[in-house]
């Protein structure tokens, strides 16, 4: 064995021995965490637990009071003339007869007779009347409308129509009729209960301060460009030719023709003139909406959808005798009748000056069916 090999063996052996004996592979002990605890008795534990889970008394009687003495009884009854002389206390409560509160005489019962006084036919005066603006009166509730309406100026009359004041200018070439400024009454777009109002106020208090600067506009992502159409492989001429779709047979063409011709061939019901545009229909819908008041309806009537049929005169006024309840859905007959009455009032009231409809399309809007669906307004 060579000297170098011996030295290497001795050195490695010494190193291994030192590693095993010297503890280089031994890990240091983990630090020990110490937590102080206290030992309590079972009784103490149950008592603590009982305090946590004990229910709160909500309507527990208060501490019993000293019984009242009957001699302290104070009589304060109204009116004083209603004292009967034969009132005696009952035995279980009062040991001796003492003054008792004066008996309450119920108000005299009115007798109701179903006597409807006779009345002669009213003489209607249809002469034009000045439109009066209603004086402002104290309002018990907020008005709810489809869209919020700001509080009008104090000197502006309240009306369904908003218009500016026009004063005739002195010396003007054309004399303009004077017009009073009117505005719609203030309204919110939903009913706000006291609970909701306070909740909203708290939300505002807790809301973060608004940013001074607006956000940078988000860059619009480039629309993905359409990929160029993949050219069909031209290797096989038979595959390159597009697959022929099923050839439309004559029956299909004939069916399409029947659809077109059949649907338009209703000469008996056809009305002349162009149809109303969607804008004209929307104008009529908004006009009636402004007068459709469901605030004075019962909860049951507010769940009924009614369809009202009516005729309009050429100047856009409803023919009052033509209004009728075409159908109803969502309630009993009484509720449907109340809902119909509210719808009828809306039509007559807002149509009293004539709805703004194109005269040349009278044939289109002479007969109307209006569906009054309260679902949205009911939940406001």
């Amino acid at each position, binding site marked *: 064995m060579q000297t170098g090999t011996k030295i290497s063996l001795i050195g490695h052996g010494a190193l291994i021995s030192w590693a095993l004996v010297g503890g280089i592979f031994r890990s240091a002990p983990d630090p020990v965490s110490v937590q102080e605890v206290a030992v309590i008795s079972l009784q103490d534990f149950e008592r603590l637990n009982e305090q946590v*889970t004990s*229910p*709160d008394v*909500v*309507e*527990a009687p*208060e501490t019993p009071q000293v*019984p009242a003495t009957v001699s302290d009884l*104070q*009589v304060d009854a109204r009116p004083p003339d209603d004292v009967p002389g034969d*009132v005696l*206390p*009952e035995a279980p*409560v009062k040991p001796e007869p003492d003054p008792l*509160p004066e*008996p*309450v005489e*119920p*108000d*005299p019962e*009115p007798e*109701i*007779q179903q006597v*409807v*006084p006779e009345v002669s036919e*009213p003489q209607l005066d*249809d002469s034009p*009347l000045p439109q009066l603006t209603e*004086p402002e009166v104290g309002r*018990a*509730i907020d008005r709810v409308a489809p869209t919020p309406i700001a509080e009008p100026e104090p000197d502006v009359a309240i009306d369904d129509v908003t218009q500016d004041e026009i004063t005739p200018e002195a010396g003007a070439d054309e004399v303009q009729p004077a017009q009073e400024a009117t505005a719609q009454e203030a309204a919110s777009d939903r*009913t706000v209960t*006291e*609970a909701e109002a*306070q*909740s909203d106020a708290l939300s505002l208090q807790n809301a973060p301060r608004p940013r001074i600067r607006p956000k940078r506009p988000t860059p619009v992502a480039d629309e993905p460009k359409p990929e160029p159409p993949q050219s069909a492989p031209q290797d096989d001429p038979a595959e390159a030719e597009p697959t022929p779709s099923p050839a439309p047979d004559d029956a299909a063409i004939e069916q399409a023709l029947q659809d*077109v011709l059949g649907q*338009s061939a209703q000469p008996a*019901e056809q009305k002349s003139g162009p149809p*109303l545009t969607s804008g004209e*229909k929307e104008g009529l*819908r908004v006009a009636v*909406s*402004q007068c*459709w*008041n469901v605030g*004075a309806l*019962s*909860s049951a*009537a507010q769940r009924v959808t009614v369809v009202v049929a009516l005729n309009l005169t050429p100047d856009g006024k409803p023919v009052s005798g033509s209004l009728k309840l075409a159908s109803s859905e969502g309630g009993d007959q009484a*509720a449907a*009748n109340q809902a119909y009455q509210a719808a009828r*009032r809306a039509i*007559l009231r807002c149509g009293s000056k004539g709805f703004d409809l194109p005269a040349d399309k009278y044939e289109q809007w002479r007969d109307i*069916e*209006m*569906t*009054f669906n309260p679902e*949205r*307004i009911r939940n406001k």
Partner: protein
Amino acid sequence: MRHALVAALCSLSLLLPNVGQAQDGPLRIEITDGVIEPLPFAVPDFIATSPAASQYAEQLARVVSQDLVGSGLFREVSKEAYISQYTDFNTPVKFPDWRAINAQALITGEVTLSGNQLTVRFRGYDVFAGKQLDGAGLQLTGTTDGWRRIAHKVADAIYSQITGEGKYFDSRVVFVSESGPKNNRQKRLAVMDYDGENVQYLTNSSSIVLAPRFSPSGDRVLYTSYESGFPQIHVLDIGRVQQRVLSAGNGAMSFAPRFAPDGRRVVYSQSEGGNTDLYSLDIASGATQRLTTSPSIETAPSYSPDGSQIVFESDRSGTPQIYIMSANGGAAKRISSGKGRYGTPVWSPRGDLVAFTKQNAGRFHIGVMRTDGSEERLLTASFLDEGPTWSPNGRVIMFTRETQGPTGRALLYSVDISGRNLKPVRTPAGGSDPAWSPLQE
């Protein structure tokens, strides 16, 4: 080519029906938006047939107006706007004059006084229809002492015909009248008209009284009194002001009573050995029946209108919540599910809603929910609101609101079930624990 032909025809078929629909049959539009606002009405002073009747003629019209306006569903058109002067009950109404001032309803009346007998004839009109309201042409007769009731009946007839709701103006409220400072509050039972008029006291203030409740016929009142030193249920005959202890309870504390719809039974809470459960009592026989046996506190019971179920408050889940069970007891189903504590549930006369008190996040609320617990709506929020009671028609809720601080007072408030028309009820002193009577007959 054939493809193009079919496509063109199909496109044409899509376009032409629109034209066809527009031309065929009536024009159809759907209205889904409207407004919620009080309905304007006019009520001129009633016509007096004699000078002696004139004071009642004016007062009757004012009370009718106050009733309708107070409901929150109507508003009166000022007399200054009138075009027609109403001078004769039998003169035909000039509807255009009333339309011009946007009075959508008109109420006219005539008063005749004979001795102390008051006869009132009245009519209600739908102005825009130009006709008399159905059922709103009546004649009422009563003594002069009861003139306010006559006015309430007139207002009830108009209100009911226009809104479709039941009547409620001719009703009374029993409550606890409170006077004096907070640390020495004097409490006694009182009864008044629903609008705070004609207050009459039923007990003195020598002992604490709590939670009065009307009988279904309106002639008796249940309440809890500490007259004997601990809470016991008493029943009081309003007409004769005679009271008696209803539940002996064998020395147990009994409280929170409420009549069954048939008036023959009473459901109440009884506390024994630190446990509070619900019991029912047959008034005629005095027999009692225990309805709950839970180790928690069960209280504030209220019958459904048909008497088959009871809604009550229990903390069996750890916090006070609302439960419903059969009127004979048995398993109960929890219906409240929101955050906070729920209490004092009261079943609506219509049967569809339960009113309750809710405490959450340091505020008290009066709210309503359906009987399955759905559609919970909080109507009020304040330092302390509690103890709701329903109007006879189930449209209005009255409750107690107590203000904060050492000078705080308990007052009665009312609110429409929509959450609108929240307002105080006028009482001579403070008031709490209101209970609405049924409609007077």
